[in-house]
C-alpha cells in the first residue's frame, strides 16, 4: 500500500508537466458546457489564437533572450496566406495552412539570417521595420490582398469532411491547437536544444564554448516562432472569415510582446495567462474603452514594476513570500 502510494507520487512528480497540460486541457474542454454565451466563447477563442502566437514568441523572447516587435507580420502572413490560397487559390484550408506556414518559415529564414546578427534595440527596430513593410504590402497590393478593405468569404477550417462552424466547434479547434502548441513548447524547453537557447540567452560566449551553435539556434528559434504565429494567423482567418490589414499592424506586434512579458519571460503557462489578460482586458474596460490604450499601458507598467517576472511567476513568488513570513512568524514566536 505504502509502496503503491510512493510509486504514484513518484509518477506524478516525474510527469508533472505532462499531467498539468492534461489537467488544463480537461478543464478547458468543460468550459463550453458552462459558458454558453457565444460572445464570451468568442473572446476565449481569440485568447486561444493569441496564445498560439504568444507561445511561439515566448520561445524566441523568453527562452532565447531575443526581441521581436514584428511577429504580427508573421501572424498576418499566415492569415493572408490561408485567405488567398482558399479563396483565389481554391485550396482546402487543411492544405493551405501548412503551405502558408512553409512560406512563412522561408520568409522568417530570409529575414532572420541578416537581422539576427543584431541584438537588443537594433533587433527590435529591424523586426518593427519588417512589420511596417508587410503591413504596407497588405494595404497597397490591392489585386492580391484586397487593399485596405481586405479579403472576405474565407471558408471555415475543416479537415477529413469535418467543418468547424459556430463558436463552440471553433472553440474546440482553437483550444485544441493551443494545447498542442503548449505541449510542443513544453517538450521543447526541456530538451537539450531548449537548454542551449536558454544558455545563449544568458551568455553567448559561454554557450558556444559548450558546443552550442549560437547563430543557428537563434535563426531556428526565430523561424519556429514565426511558424507558430503563421498557424495562429491561418486559424484566425478561417475563424473570422475576413482579414483586414489593420489587424496585423505594429500595435498588434507590441500586444504579442506584451502578452509574453506580462505573462512572464520564459514562462509558457505565463504566455497563456498573458494572452488571456491582454485579450480580455479591453472587454472588461467597457465604458472606459476610449482610454483603452492609456489604461493598457498603465497596467503593463504597473505589472512590470510590481511583478517584474510576470503575472504567474510573480504571483507565485508573492504567495511564497507571504507564506514564508507567516511560517517564520509562527516558528519564531517565543513560547
Amino acid at each position: 500500500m505504502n509502496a503503491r502510494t510512493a510509486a504514484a507520487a513518484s509518477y506524478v512528480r516525474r510527469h508533472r508537466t505532462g499531467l498539468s497540460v492534461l489537467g488544463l486541457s480537461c478543464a478547458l474542454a468543460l468550459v463550453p458546457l458552462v459558458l454558453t454565451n457565444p460572445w464570451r466563447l468568442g473572446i476565449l477563442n481569440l485568447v486561444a489564437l493569441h496564445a498560439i502566437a504568444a507561445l511561439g514568441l515566448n520561445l524566441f523572447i523568453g527562452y532565447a533572450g531575443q526581441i521581436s516587435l514584428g511577429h504580427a507580420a508573421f501572424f498576418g502572413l499566415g492569415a493572408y496566406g490561408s485567405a488567398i490560397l482558399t479563396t483565389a487559390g481554391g485550396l482546402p484550408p487543411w492544405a493551405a495552412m501548412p503551405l502558408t506556414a512553409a512560406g512563412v518559415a522561408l520568409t522568417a529564414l530570409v529575414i532572420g539570417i541578416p537581422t539576427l546578427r543584431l541584438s537588443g534595440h537594433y533587433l527590435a527596430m529591424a523586426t518593427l521595420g519588417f512589420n511596417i513593410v508587410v503591413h504596407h504590402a497588405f494595404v497597397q497590393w490591392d489585386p492580391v490582398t484586397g487593399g485596405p478593405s481586405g479579403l472576405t468569404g474565407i471558408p471555415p477550417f475543416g479537415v477529413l469532411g469535418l467543418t468547424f462552424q459556430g463558436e463552440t466547434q471553433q472553440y474546440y479547434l482553437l483550444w485544441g491547437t493551443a494545447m498542442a502548441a503548449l505541449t510542443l513548447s513544453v517538450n521543447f524547453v526541456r530538451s537539450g536544444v531548449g537548454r542551449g537557447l536558454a544558455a545563449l540567452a544568458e551568455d553567448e560566449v559561454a554557450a558556444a564554448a559548450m558546443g552550442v551553435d549560437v547563430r543557428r539556434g537563434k535563426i531556428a528559434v526565430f523561424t519556429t516562432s514565426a511558424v507558430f504565429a503563421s498557424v495562429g494567423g491561418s486559424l484566425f482567418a478561417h475563424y473570422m472569415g475576413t482579414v483586414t490589414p489593420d489587424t496585423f499592424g505594429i500595435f498588434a506586434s507590441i500586444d504579442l510582446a506584451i502578452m509574453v512579458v506580462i505573462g512572464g519571460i520564459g514562462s509558457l503557462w505565463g504566455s497563456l495567462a498573458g494572452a488571456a489578460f491582454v485579450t480580455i482586458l479591453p472587454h472588461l474596460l467597457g465604458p472606459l474603452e476610449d482610454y483603452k490604450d492609456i489604461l493598457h499601458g498603465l497596467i503593463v507598467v504597473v505589472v512590470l514594476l510590481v511583478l517584474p517576472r510576470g503575472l504567474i511567476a510573480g504571483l507565485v513568488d508573492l504567495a511564497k513570500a507571504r507564506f514564508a513570513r507567516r511560517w517564520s512568524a509562527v516558528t519564531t514566536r517565543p513560547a
Partner: protein
Amino acid sequence: MATAVSEQTLLTTSGLTKHFGGLPALHEVGFAAERGKVTALIGPNGAGKTTFINCLTGILRPDKGSMVFDGHALAGLAPHQIARLGIARTFQNLRLFAGLSVLDNVLCGLSAKAGDSFLEAFIRTPSLRHRERRLWLTALEALDTFGLSARADCPAGSLSYGEKKRLDLARAFVSGPTLVLLDEPVAGLNPDETERVGALIRQLRRGGATLILVEHDMDLVMSVSDHVVVLDGGRRIAAGSPEDIRRNPLVLEAYLGKISLTA
C-alpha cells in the same frame, strides 16, 4: 628545446601570432600539450595568456600560425565547432548561466551530446527521452564529483564564489572532453578552497585528463604541472619542467621578479 611533436602530443601551435591594432599580443608562439599531462601557461599580466586561450577556442582569429588538435586544424573553426572536437574550457570570470539551475548549467556542458534537431525536441521522441535521461545521470555524477549535489536545483547565481568556481569546472569536465583549458581556476579563492580545487585537478589528471592550466598561483602551478610554458610580452620565453622554470634566470627576471621561489 623546440616543440617536440610526438604521438603523445595532443595539441600543438606553431608561429601563432595575433596583433591588436599593431600591438603584438602573441608573437610566433609555439606550444605543445601532451596527452594525460598538465601543461601550465604562466606569465605576467598582459603576457598574452588570455589571447592565446581565446585563439585556441575560436573566440579570436590568429593573424598567422597553425593550431593542430588531435589531427584537426583549429584555425578558422567557430567556437562551438572547436568545443565539439573535445576541447572544453573554464572561464576566468566564470560566465555561468546565472538564471539556470546548477544542474541545468552542467547539462549545458553536455550540449554537444544532446542533439541539434528542433523537430525531435518538439515531439520529444523516445530516443530523445533516453538520451536526456543518460545526460541527466551524467550531470548528477559530475555534480557529485565536484561536491555540488546538494545545490543541484539552486540558481547558479545564488552559489558562493567557491561553489561557482567548482560549477565552472563541473560544466567543463562533464562531457569527458579530450582537453580542458583551465583559465585561472583558483583566482580569488581562499587557501582552503584553493587546496580543494588543486586536489580536484590532481584527481582529474590521475583520471587521464589532459589539461592546460593558466594560473597566477605559483604554488598550484608548481605542484600540479608536468610542464610549464612561460609567456612574456606575447613571446614564449621559456618552457620546461617546473623545476627548470623555477631556476630559469629569464623567467625569474621577467615574471617572478624578486619573489622567492621556495614554495
